[in-house]
């Protein structure tokens, strides 16, 4: 059987067919042969028996009339019967009466038995001789016994001939069966060989996008179909796997990138925070040194530098908060009616101021005059639009030493607004343009001069513009300048200007009849607010936590307005506000917090606060907000 395992299917099939057909033939031939031999033997037996009877009957008369010669004459006829060896005729007493022998060397035996015992023919088969003893009975008279011996060699020869013929037929059939089996095994072995070939091809090439042609409806046909289905499934699975792999790869890349960026960010931040801190701490120390010989002009200059550095620091922190909000998808777009022209004008004016602070008076900042002629209101988030433009102009200012910065907008097809900020700065090449909007990317020029900034401004701009359903891009040439473009949907409204507007006028307020409660646990902050409010001559009360503020309100009905810090010990600003509002519903509460995350403001408004300020609070802003609420409270004052 192990030999059988190593041969090919084709040979297996041929062997099986040959084995079965040969076995069948051999069995068939054996059966036919045996029956043939049997019938031959029987035929010979019957022939001999008949001859014996005939001769016996012929011998009746010679026996009757003691005619030995006649009997001999009859027996001599045996010579014409092929294979007859001898014949003997015994009379009814058992004495030999007449005999015949083919050759002289044959011995005729006397009858060693009583003739009366023999009532019917008896046959004896020995190796080569068939002997028949037959009683001669005629008309009920017993005449004697005839014994005839016949050679069976003739039979043996016949059997031998028969075997030879059968063997040659068998050989012929075997050869025929071999050829036929070789021919007819193909429909079975061929598809299996094809399947094997294809499987090998698949395993070598790894290509599963192949198919087997089904040619039959038998088990192999079903196998082919199942195989095709399997290949199809493998293909589908492979595609899914590839996709998942790609996705994972992307995720991995992103994770790696993110990790890299975080590292870069940390390194950057460390540098960016230290730089302004250095200036702030250094100059304040110079100013506060007891034996310093700083002139008042120098002092003023130092303070300006300190202020500038602090502003930079604040800007950086704002940027970080914004980018983290964007990444966390928590940045909310609050669309309002926005007076486009006044917004642009405000920005222009503030930059004229900023330019001075930065010492870039050489740079001319222009607002495109054509834009000013139109008075357009659009629905957008003014705060974010302001932020984008401010960032872009700030960026332009950073890279421009002389020349100009121009910004403005135009309406395209009445559908969208195209804003632009053009500068004559260092510009950049194509390579840098591709990732200028990526986070933490900073532009460095050939002189390796490091520009200030965390590399977040443009990334924030891009995200904000996209949140406002617009697009941002840059056109630039090195040493000629850059132009940043962004679009916004032109969603025009005809509404009055009701957006929050900060009055940028140096007004002197007089609140000598007002009492302001400042709830603030941090002494430095309280001192700052006290200093700002000094000029208004208002009466200022101090509470160091929420609970104290509540107590003071319940004891003092003269308090007109409250400035409430959110994060305080004992009782926080939200809780205090709720309690105060339950005592005096109409008293305005303005929160001030370093919390700039969205939700904090909402939470404050929810607890009953009327307005909010975000630290650091600029004096002008604080005064303007207080003014707004005090006026509402007592329009006559």
């Amino acid at each position, binding site marked *: 059987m192990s030999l059988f395992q190593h041969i090919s299917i084709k040979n297996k099939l041929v062997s099986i067919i040959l084995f079965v057909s040969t076995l069948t033939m051999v069995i068939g031939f054996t059966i036919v042969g045996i029956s043939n031999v049997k019938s031959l033997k029987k035929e010979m037996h019957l022939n001999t028996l008949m001859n014996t009877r005939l001769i016996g009957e012929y011998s009746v*008369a*010679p026996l*009757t*009339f003691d005619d030995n010669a*006649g009997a001999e004459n009859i027996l001599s006829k045996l010579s014409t019967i092929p294979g007859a060896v001898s014949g003997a005729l015994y009379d009814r*007493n*058992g004495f030999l009466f007449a005999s015949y022998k083919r050759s002289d060397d044959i011995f005729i035996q006397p009858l060693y038995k009583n003739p009366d015992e023999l009532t019917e023919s008896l046959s004896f088969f020995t190796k080569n001789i068939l002997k028949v003893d037959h009683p001669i009975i*005629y008309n009920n008279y017993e005449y004697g016994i005839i014994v005839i011996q016949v050679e069976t060699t003739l039979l043996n020869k016949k059997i031998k001939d028969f075997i030879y013929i059968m063997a040659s037929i068998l050989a012929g059939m075997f050869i025929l069966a071999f050829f036929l089996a070789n021919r007819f095994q193909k429909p079975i072995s061929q598809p299996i060989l094809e399947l094997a070939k294809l499987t090998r091809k698949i395993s070598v090439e790894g290509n599963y996008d192949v198919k087997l042609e089904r040619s039959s409806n038998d088990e192999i046909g079903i196998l082919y179909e199942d195989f095709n289905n399997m290949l199809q499934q493998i293909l589908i699975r492979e595609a899914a796997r590839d996709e998942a792999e790609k996705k994972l790869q992307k995720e991995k890349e992103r994770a790696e990138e993110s990790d890299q960026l975080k590292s870069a960010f940390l390194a950057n931040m460390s540098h960016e925070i230290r730089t302004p801190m250095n200036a702030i701490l250094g100059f304040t120390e110079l100013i506060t040194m007891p034996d310093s010989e700083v002139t008042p002009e120098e002092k003023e200059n130092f303070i300006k530098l300190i202020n500038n550095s602090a502003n930079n620091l604040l800007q950086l922190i704002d940027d970080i908060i914004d980018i983290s909000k964007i990444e966390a998808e928590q940045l909310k777009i609050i669309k309002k009616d926005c007076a486009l022209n006044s917004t642009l004008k405000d920005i222009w004016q503030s930059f004229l101021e900023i330019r001075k602070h930065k010492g870039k008076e050489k740079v001319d900042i222009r607002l495109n005059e054509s834009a000013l002629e139109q008075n357009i209101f659009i629905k957008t988030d003014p705060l974010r639009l302001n932020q984008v433009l401010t960032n872009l102009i700030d960026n332009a200012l950073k890279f421009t030493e002389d020349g100009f910065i121009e910004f403005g907008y135009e309406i395209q097809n009445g559908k969208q607004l195209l804003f632009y900020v053009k500068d004559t700065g260092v510009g950049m090449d194509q390579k840098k343009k591709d990732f200028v909007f990526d986070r933490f990317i900073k532009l460095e020029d050939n002189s390796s001069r490091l520009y200030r900034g965390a590399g977040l401004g443009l990334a924030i701009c891009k995200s904000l513009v996209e949140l406002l359903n617009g697009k941002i891009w840059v056109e630039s040439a090195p040493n000629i300048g850059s132009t940043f473009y962004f679009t916004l949907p032109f969603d025009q409204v005809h509404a009055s200007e009701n957006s929050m507007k900060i009055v940028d006028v140096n007004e002197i307020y007089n609140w000598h009849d007002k009492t302001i409660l400042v709830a603030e646990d941090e002494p430095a902050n309280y001192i700052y607010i006290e200093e700002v409010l000094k000029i208004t001559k208002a009466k200022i009360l101090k509470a160091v936590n929420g609970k104290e503020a509540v107590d003071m309100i319940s004891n003092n009905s003269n308090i007109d307005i409250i400035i409430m810090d959110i994060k305080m010990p004992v009782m926080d600003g939200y809780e205090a506000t709720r309690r105060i509002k339950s005592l005096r519903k109409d008293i305005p509460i303005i929160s001030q917090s370093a919390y700039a995350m969205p939700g904090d403001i909402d939470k404050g408004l929810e607890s009953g606060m009327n307005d909010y300020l975000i630290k650091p609070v600029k004096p002008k802003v604080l005064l303007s907000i207080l003014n707004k609420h005090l006026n509402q409270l007592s329009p006559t004052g």
Partner: protein
Amino acid sequence: MLNINFKHIIYTFFKFQKLRAILFILFFIISFQSFSQTNIYVLKAVYLEKFSRFITWPEESQINNVSEPFIISVIGRTPLTKNLEQIYSIQKINNKKVIIKRISNLYEIENSHILVIAESEKKNLQNILTLTKNLPVLTVSEASDFSEKGVIVNFFEENNKLRFEINETAVLESPLQMSFYLMNSAKIVHPVKDN
């Protein structure tokens, strides 16, 4: 007790194997003597019974009727008659009692199954044969040329051995039927020609 086959008698009486060889030789001497000398007529008489085994008589001869006798008629004078009477006083033919009739008149032939014609009837042979020609009677003789003349069976001696000849034409003309085996043992006279 007389029987044609002495060998058989001896054999049945003495079944002892050892005695067989001695008895065998003794018997041969006796039988040879009797056969060649006196007992040729005994043999002939016995042969008549044996002939009857190979011959079929027509139904009219009452051959199968056991109550009717088997009749052997003898015409003329011959020693055979005495032997016939001796033997067939006991011996039956076809289970029938045998009657031996000595006849002188030809008309007595009727109802006979076998007619033995003695040599003494040589002159009268043609008349006898004319009469028996169409009768179911087996004619037997013991004269040299009787068979030529139309007798069906005729005994003769050859090499000291009793033989018989058969006139085939006479058999064919007779209402009797004769077995081929009998003719095969006999010398055929006047064979029937195939034409």
